[in-house]
């Protein structure tokens, strides 16, 4: 599979502080790659390096196979939203998009198209950005990223400031973008946001990659949860068959598969009242496990 974004050993040092430490990952077409980490983990710095805005101390990165700075008319290939607040307050939303459209040599109708696409009304488009709420700025930023009909989206905390309906809308937008073959790299410290949309995950803490892989892989928790009329005896039977067993509030959890547990219970003639794969602990637990050792707990869920 072709990688649309690659980061190779990216490192960024500011004086004595290491913001990004040997970060390598890829993002593939047709997939949403979630870049997840607590505040200050180095997500934004990494994305700035990907977009050629910051020079890495060591390492390199490419977008569409070349370093970002070597892209011709990059807005037509890569949509970037790094900071929704970084807009000129004295311009209207429409003017701000029109400038970019003119630079990319796009027809003026494209500005109206993306305004509609992100749910800003024509009259909101004609308002100066000074009067925009954070959510509106975020939508305008997304409009700017989508303007050039890019193949790749690089979005830093795009859900910031959106209300729940807005977050749901954005999920749909990113999913259909990826479904059409686009590549999405989105960062977030909001676990639920990434969990709901990402196909692949890169988890970062204190500047280092802590885990990466497909979301399915990272989230799969092997094991079974079972409740029976005689948990003690079932536990002993499972133990005897060589499986790990732990007693929980609601029955027992074991490393055996659902099939194994059913077969053993049948053999031991124990009535099973509840039998299912162990509840998917989800990204949250993974995330906390991965980052807890780094002592940053300022994560909102």
């Amino acid at each position, binding site marked *: 599979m072709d990688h649309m974004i690659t980061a190779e050993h990216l490192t960024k040092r500011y004086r004595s502080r290491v913001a990004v430490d040997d970060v390598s990952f890829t993002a593939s077409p047709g997939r949403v790659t979630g870049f997840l980490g607590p505040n200050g983990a180095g997500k934004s710095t990494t994305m*700035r390096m990907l*977009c*050629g*805005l910051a*020079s890495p101390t060591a390492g390199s990165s490419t977008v569409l196979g070349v370093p*970002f*700075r070597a*892209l*011709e*008319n*990059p*807005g*037509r290939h*890569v949509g*970037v939203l*790094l*900071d929704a*607040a*970084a*807009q*000129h307050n*004295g*311009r209207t939303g429409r*003017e701000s998009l029109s*400038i*970019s459209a*003119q*630079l*990319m*040599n*796009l027809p003026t109708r*494209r500005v109206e*198209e993306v305004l509609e*696409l992100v*749910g800003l009304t024509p009259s909101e488009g004609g308002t100066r950005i000074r009067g925009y709420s954070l959510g509106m700025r975020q939508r305008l930023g997304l409009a*700017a990223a*989508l303007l*050039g*009909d890019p193949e790749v989206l690089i979005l830093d905390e795009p859900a910031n400031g959106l209300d729940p309906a807005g977050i*749901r*809308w954005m*999920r*749909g*937008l*990113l*999913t*259909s*973008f*990826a*479904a*059409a*073959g*686009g590549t999405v790299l989105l960062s977030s410290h909001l676990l639920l946001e990434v969990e*709901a*949309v*990402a196909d692949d995950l890169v988890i970062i803490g204190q500047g280092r990659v802590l885990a990466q892989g497909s*979301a*399915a892989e990272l*989230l*799969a928790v092997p094991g079974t949860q079972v409740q029976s009329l005689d948990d003690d005896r079932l536990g002993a039977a499972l133990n005897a068959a060589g499986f790990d067993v732990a007693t929980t509030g609601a029955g027992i959890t074991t490393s055996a598969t659902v099939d194994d547990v059913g077969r053993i219970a049948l053999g031991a003639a124990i009535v099973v009242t509840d039998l299912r794969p162990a509840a998917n602990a989800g990204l949250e637990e993974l995330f906390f496990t991965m980052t807890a050792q780094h002592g940053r707990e300022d994560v909102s869920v």
Partner: protein
Amino acid sequence: MSAYRTTHQAVGSVTDASSAGQPTGLRPATGGIPFLRLCRVELRKQLDTRAGVWLLVAIALVNCGFIALTLFTADAAALTWTSLSQSASLGQLLLLPLIGVMAATSEWSARTALTTFTLEPRRTRVNLAKLASAGALGLIVMAVTFAVSAVLNLVGIVWQGGDGSWALDWGVVAGSGLALVLLVWQGVAFGLALLSTPVAIVAYLALPTVWTVLTLTIESLRGPAEWLDVNQTLSVLMMGAMTADDWPRLAVSLLVWLAVPLAFGLWRTARREP
């Protein structure tokens, strides 16, 4: 696929209003951004904000004021196209460089550099487009001033019985045009070097004046001042009376007040993280 995937597909179908990924009918991108297009966009950015518009309005008002003053008070014999357009040029000489300053600084104060440099990562090219477009704006404003002055010259002839000479001193015209462009570039250079609108404006307005005042009060500075006082060398240029001695003086003063801040500004903006 995981349960998560299934969940968000369901959500996606609910919010099907989004059409990201749908065909947009845009022609595929070919080639980079031509320099002329970059200049046009930079020119637009100088004029599409309130600050830019009000500076132009202020220039027009100041010019109108001076031209009215000339029409009402000057001797009829002194009312010529040249004299009217000269008095009508003060506004842009004073204020147009501030548009140059803001062209450079607003990218950093409003942090639009983030967008600008992701759409054109060659930063020095963007800065050169700022210089070219701000200089072009100077020439456009000057052409407008000459056109308005021509109309007022007619008014002078009819109303005040003015001399109304249409003779233009081309040395003055070329000298004023060049001086205006150089002043605007000095504004851009100060903006790029200092990257803060108030600091750059104060520095642009105050430093050359402070130097001029110093050279007037301190005897020993008069010699070097002929080479280093940009107010002095530019006023000679604007009078259209450049001699062989004056060109090197102009060059040296511009090196100090334009080339050095510009070089530092280009170096600084090429490295700074927006």
